[in-house]
């Protein structure tokens, strides 16, 4: 929980020595509360005050990095329960689990590493591979992890074993360099697991039985006492409802109660016998608070859906994704194809381009720069007026690519057609539908008629 300036002031020497660069201790405290300076600037602050201030300034959910290098991912540091309150910051890692004795382990690892899909101009990828210790001794597990690393170099890993010796063998065999997440320390083995994670400098997952949040707190205290700072919490699995309750309670405890022991990202095992059931579980995990999500099926359709959902849910509600304002060609548009204009709010763009594409009528889509606002919002804000529309048309070079001079306006700005006609002499201004969904019908029945 963040401290106020006055609370901080009480912890300072109150000597007004000015060595921190501020005229008084109070001014320094106020600046600290706004996170505008560092406590280190005060040479006389005592350890007790330091500890209290450090604890108070730490984020309620710690940021934890998993993996090393280009594909490493960070989770945690979330500050709200609902994305509309601010935004969700660090999207959960989507990790595919394979068993260490799976003969296709290397092949799966390579497929996970290379899976990539593009959406709204962004490349979406899976985040890692979980190697679950299934049969075999420590050496066999270490060999499986080595084979995985060889097949998918640089891909973040989750090492899942209850056997500290097997984990030590795998990490000593080189995996430590990849900074994998070690899963999991439980009541029976936490000391050995904490020792291994500490020895190799890896983040550690702690796991309690489903419903036992107190057990999770105890584990957290224990492994943090043993020197582990980067934790991930696995509250066990108890079906969709049980998991939702646990994840909600953990998020609330961290954010609203400042529960230090529970202020870490959450681990969701979404694995299920069918990819469909797994998809439902992973969907809930993305919507509700997971930091790492384990899936067992590498079904591309489901993975594509999950990566898309993650992108959706983790989009900042205050900063909608924009597309580049320019002339887009939908299908193989030619000189006689229709010209439609819209705004550069990504959802607007993708709705319109999707409908034009669905209509099967090649077209030119002119996207005006509306600062990422939708047609109606941009119109109301003066960012999509006749002048802007005319300028967009002129600057786009569309005139040299078509043999007609017809421009289709969004139905929502039908009222602008007269003004646009004045701004664009010689053009025929047509009024399209208000909603993108009606575009196919418009293109087939009105445009051609």
């Amino acid at each position, binding site marked *: 929980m963040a401290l106020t300036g006055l609370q901080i002031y009480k912890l300072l020497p109150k000597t007004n020595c000015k060595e921190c660069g501020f005229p008084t201790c109070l001014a320094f405290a106020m600046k600290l509360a706004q996170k505008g300076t560092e406590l280190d600037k005060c040479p006389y602050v005592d350890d007790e005050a330091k500890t209290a201030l450090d604890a108070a300034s730490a984020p309620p959910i710690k940021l934890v990095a998993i993996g090393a290098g280009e594909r490493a991912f960070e989770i945690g540091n979330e500050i709200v329960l*609902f*994305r*509309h309150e601010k935004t969700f910051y660090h999207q959960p890692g989507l990790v595919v689990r394979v068993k260490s004795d799976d003969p296709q382990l290397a092949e799966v690892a390579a497929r996970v590493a290379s*899976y*990539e*899909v*593009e*959406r709204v101009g962004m490349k979406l990828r899976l985040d890692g591979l979980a190697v679950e210790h299934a049969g075999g001794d420590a050496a066999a597990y270490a060999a499986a992890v080595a084979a995985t690393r060889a097949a998918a170099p640089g891909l973040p890993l989750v090492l899942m074993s209850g056997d500290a010796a097997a984990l030590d063998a795998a990490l000593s065999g080189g995996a430590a360099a990849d900074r994998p997440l070690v899963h999991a320390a439980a009541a029976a083995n936490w000391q050995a697991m904490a020792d291994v994670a500490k020895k190799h400098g890896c983040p550690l997952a702690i796991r309690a039985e489903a419903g036992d*949040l*107190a057990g999770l*707190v*105890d584990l957290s*205290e224990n492994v943090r006492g043993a020197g582990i700072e980067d934790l991930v919490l696995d509250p066990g699995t108890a*079906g*969709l*409802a049980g998991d*939702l*309750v646990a994840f*909600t*309670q953990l998020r*609330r*405890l961290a954010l*609203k*109660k400042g*529960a230090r*022991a529970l202020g870490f990202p959450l681990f969701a095992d979404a694995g299920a016998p069918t*990819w*469909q*059931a797994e*998809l*439902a579980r992973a*969907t*809930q995990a*993305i*919507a*509700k608070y997971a930091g790492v999500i384990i899936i067992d099926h590498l*079904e*591309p*359709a*489901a*993975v*594509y*859906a*999950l990566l*898309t*959902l993650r*992108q*959706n*849910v983790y*989009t900042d*509600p205050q900063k909608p994704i924009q597309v580049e304002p320019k002339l887009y060609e939908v299908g193989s548009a030619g000189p006689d194809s229709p010209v439609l204009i819209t705004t550069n709010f990504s*959802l607007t763009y*993708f*709705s319109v381009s*999707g409908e034009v*594409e*669905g209509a099967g009528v090649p077209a030119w889509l002119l996207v005006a720069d509306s600062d990422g606002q939708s047609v109606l919002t941009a119109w109301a804000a003066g960012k999509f007026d006749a002048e802007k529309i005319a300028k967009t048309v002129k600057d786009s070079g569309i005139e040299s690519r078509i043999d007609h001079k017809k421009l289709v306006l969004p139905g929502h700005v039908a009222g602008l057609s007269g003004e646009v006609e004045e701004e664009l002499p010689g053009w025929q201004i047509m009024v399209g539908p208000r909603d993108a*969904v009606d575009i196919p*019908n418009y293109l087939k*029945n009105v445009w051609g008629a």
Partner: protein
Amino acid sequence: MTAVEIPVEKWSGAVREVTLGSSYGGGTRTSTVTVGGETSLPFLGFEGALPHRPALAVEVVDMKPADWSPELVATWGDDLSDPANWAARAVEEGADLIALKLRSCHPDFGDRSATEARATVDRVLAAVGVPLIVYGPGTADKDNEVLVAVAEATKGEQLALGLCEEKNYRTIVAAALGNGHLVIAQTPIDVNLAKQLNILISDMRLPLERVLMDPNTGALGYGLEYTYSVMERLRLAALMGDAMTQQPMICTIGEESWRQKEGRAATDVPEAWGELAERGVAWEVTTAMTLLESGADILVLRHPGSVGVLREALDDLTKGA
């Protein structure tokens, strides 16, 4: 052992209970569907009541859809040509209710008359015992004409009539009011517009126990996050006691997900998209699950496979509630 004090939200409001279908007073349904009544956020049974599980509706169209995904066409086969057979099959596949769309009454798709629409509704009512949602063709004039005729001919069935929007709510609400039906109030992804329409409807004296709220669904990848957040805000407002946000929410999942390229394109797509059969269901299930988490009470679906997956998920989500 450490004791953990679980934070429990104390909500003062509740979602209204709304019942579709009736078996008396003119109603001929053999089952009814009641949704709403929640006094907690979705599926958090530890802090409130969740008296009714969300219901699954399957969309049935009164004419063979010319523009539906090949995957849906393959799955439903000949049933697509006959709304009565289609509805009966949908119930076998697990539908709790049927959402019948009178598309053939649209001026561009056959322009069938209100009389013909009534006959279609009668046939579907005869084919299934579950409650019905009836959607007009989607143009204001024809919606009014068709829905009024259907409402009068089915007095007492407690149908849900859609869509009831700002531009036509008077006619639809009057038709529901006089004939014992419900309305589906749709507004474009906005908390205040949703509230405002509920106020207008209640000003006409239609009891709010007969109003479902459709916040307008954006499919996965096509605005889902907007619907998700608006529904969370509406549900939070409802639980905090804002009376004009306390309607159960209905989401047209199937229509939105299967309309997108991901639900339709079988070829010429990236390999990473997977096959259409899996992709279409994945899109529908993911959209549906996300909106269940944000408060959906009725999901209108298109694919029987999705119905099965979501039925299982709901079994799991409502266990012990």
